[in-house]
């Protein structure tokens, strides 16, 4: 894609999300969502193969439906409250519609079916934008309407998302699908805590974005999209294999890495609200996630795959791929746990 066009499209994507986050009028929020969606379609279609076309079409259909559903909820809210300002939504029907629409945009279960297929059909860079930047806008709206969300609905969606994210990823060897199921599970964790303490949702979103960005960048360094190609990394970039090890363990939520912080805080908030079984169930289901991350680290860092003799002495070319800001990203994705007491500034 020619650079000027790419810049305009990227700027539109960012502007769309910014409009969603910064406006207080429901119509502008809808406009922002549509801008975002229309601008990201060319990004998803960077390669002209049928798989990418199918992925972009599926993405367009789900997001457009969700936006329309959101508009419906907004109109019902207009009918019952008489104004367009984003505030507490008094009508339960409007609130349920908006929640459903936003969870459809996020890829929470039971609207998660598009996430693995769309993520698989696009390039790694587009996948990175899809799974990180695109989550910010719906999450910000959920944050703003959090006092009026129906807890039962969202908690049910969250629980099923964690289960789907865990079980769905178990049979995958394609890295993009693994990251898609990981995204579903993490969105589930975030959705569980919105109605109780939205700040923890923002914390989880931030750490999830950092970790996912790091992971995708490490995958892009090697242009690897399958577990098999990732297992050849010990030859070319041995240090990156250790990074993948730590990052995968952090995504799985193992202490003392930063991936544990959101899980710890979310379980703390849920137990403060007298829910004991749900966080236990979510925590144990997150172990399924850990299993397939661990399988990735086994094939990448901890064992050496059977390889031909040609592989063992690869010619070391100079690094030409750009990995923007990779070291700070990796450090923040793995070593932030000692800074957890700083969360008290959020009170």
């Amino acid at each position, binding site marked *: 894609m020619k650079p000027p066009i790419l810049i305009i499209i990227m700027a539109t994507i960012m502007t769309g999300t910014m409009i969603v986050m910064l406006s207080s009028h429901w119509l502008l929020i809808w406009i922002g969502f549509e801008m975002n969606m229309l601008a990201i379609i060319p990004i998803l279609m960077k390669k002209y193969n049928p798989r990418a076309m199918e992925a972009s079409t599926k993405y367009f259909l789900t997001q457009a439906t969700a936006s329309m559903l959101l508009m419906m909820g907004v109109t019902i809210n207009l009918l019952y409250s008489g104004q367009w300002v984003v505030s507490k939504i008094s009508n339960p029907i409007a609130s349920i519609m908006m929640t459903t629409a936003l969870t459809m945009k996020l890829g929470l279960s039971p609207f998660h079916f598009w996430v693995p297929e769309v993520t698989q059909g696009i390039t790694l860079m587009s996948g990175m934008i899809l799974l990180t930047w695109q989550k910010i806008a719906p999450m910000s709206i959920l944050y703003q309407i959090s006092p009026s969300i129906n807890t039962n609905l969202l908690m049910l969606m969250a629980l099923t998302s964690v289960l789907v994210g865990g079980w769905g990823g178990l049979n995958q060897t394609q890295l993009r699908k693994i990251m898609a199921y990981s995204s579903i599970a993490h969105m589930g964790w975030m959705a569980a805590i919105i109605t109780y303490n939205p700040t923890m949702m923002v914390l989880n979103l931030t750490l999830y974005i950092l970790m996912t960005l790091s992971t995708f960048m490490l995958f892009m360094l090697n242009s690897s999209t399958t577990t098999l190609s990732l297992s050849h990394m010990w030859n070319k970039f041995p240090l990156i294999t250790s990074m993948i090890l730590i990052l995968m363990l952090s995504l799985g939520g193992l*202490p003392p890495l930063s991936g544990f912080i959101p899980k710890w805080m979310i379980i703390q908030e849920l*137990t403060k609200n007298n829910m004991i079984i749900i966080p236990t169930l979510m925590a*144990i289901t997150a*172990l399924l996630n850990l299993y397939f991350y*661990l399988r990735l680290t086994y094939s990448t860092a*901890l064992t050496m795959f059977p390889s031909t003799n040609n592989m063992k002495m690869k010619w070391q070319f100079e690094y030409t791929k750009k990995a923007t800001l990779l070291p700070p990203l990796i450090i923040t994705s793995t070593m932030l746990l000692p800074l957890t007491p700083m969360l008290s500034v959020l009170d």
Partner: protein
Amino acid sequence: MLKIIIPTIMLIPLTWMSKPNMIWINTTTYGLLISLISLFYLNQPNDNTLNSSLMFFSDSLSAPLLALTTWLLPLMLMASQHHLSKEPLTRKKLYISMLILLQLFLIMTFTASELIFFYILFEATLIPTLIIITRWGNQTERLNAGLYFLFYTLMGSLPLLVALLYIHNFMGSLNFLMIQYWIQPLPNSWSNIFLWLACMMAFMVKMPLYGLHLWLPKAHVEAPIAGSMVLAAVLLKLGGYGMMRITTLLNPLTNFMAYPFMMLSLWGMIMTSSICLRQTDLKSLIAYSSVSHMALVIVAVLIQTPCSYMGATALMIAHGLTSSMLFCLANSNYERIHSRTMILARGLQTLLPLMAAWWLLASLTNLALPPTINLIGELFVVMSSFSWSNITIILMGINITITALYSLYMLITTQRGKYSHHIKNIKPSFTRENALMTLHLLPLLLLSLNPKIILGPIY
């Protein structure tokens, strides 16, 4: 406590920046110096705990375990020198860094004063251990072993996290020192039963309890020598230490809830001891012997009498040193014949007499010969379980007999009798190996002169 933690952290730059022929020497020496510092904590004045800071403290329960942990690092490094000699330099340094990182987490775990801090570090010890087992183990089963190890422990400890956060909410703080004064009795109700289970299962898996012990033979057998040493000597004791700490919160429900676990432990120790008699794999035998000894510790902690706590603490330290020594001996065999099968290397006494002396002493301490601290531990546990219920003396007696049987079986199979033909050209014992055995045995024998140090806070 920082005077131990910061030097341990600094051991990592020491490894990476030493000259290639000095990495082992430097780390071992400074590791021994750090263990000297930890000995200061053994001097506990009058029943009080030594509070170093807001986050760390040490009392007469954690100080011996701390000393054991810091003593073990140089021993692990000495034991690993041979099997890593053929690896490239970076991998050697990585291995040593993993060991040091594990050491660091263990030191912080044993001296943590807040329960959530303890939990985070308890889980953190899993990661270096996993990496050591899966990356440097020798057989293909090590992948499965690492998985079993990680997932058994995590399944047990996630409910512990929820339970700790619930207790934090309920009581206001989880600091050990404060919580002793705020405890309220825990009555018997369904939700309290689940709370008790959530708190204890993590440590039961770690100990391990007989029904949940499946990870242990796999992990111990597949791990390289340093991994086996640290698993057997210290990581199992984390379970015992955690149980001792958390049972202060769980009275009097423990009297009711302890029965199933007591039965599993009492039956399990006999079962695992009996399995030892039928093992062909030397490391597997020592692993099952660990399960059997730890079952005694579980019985002791669940009975909750002063005598049993003394026995449990003494048994933990004694078993740590003995088990680690047995693994080192098994490893010295493995390095020579590259197989763990016992009968392949028989009659070693004629070929390596000094090593046979260490084998003899290790087997004798394993079967709890007087006046070693192993005996003191086992005797206190047997006495207190007898006072808890008279019938347990039968089971305990059977266990002690079978322990003696398999220890002597191991000794006789490897050392006595005619040697097998093909081991005539094994290398003689290295001085490093003899030093390793001495360093294991000397604390064990000297402690029998003054067991007061390891008898724990109740003494």
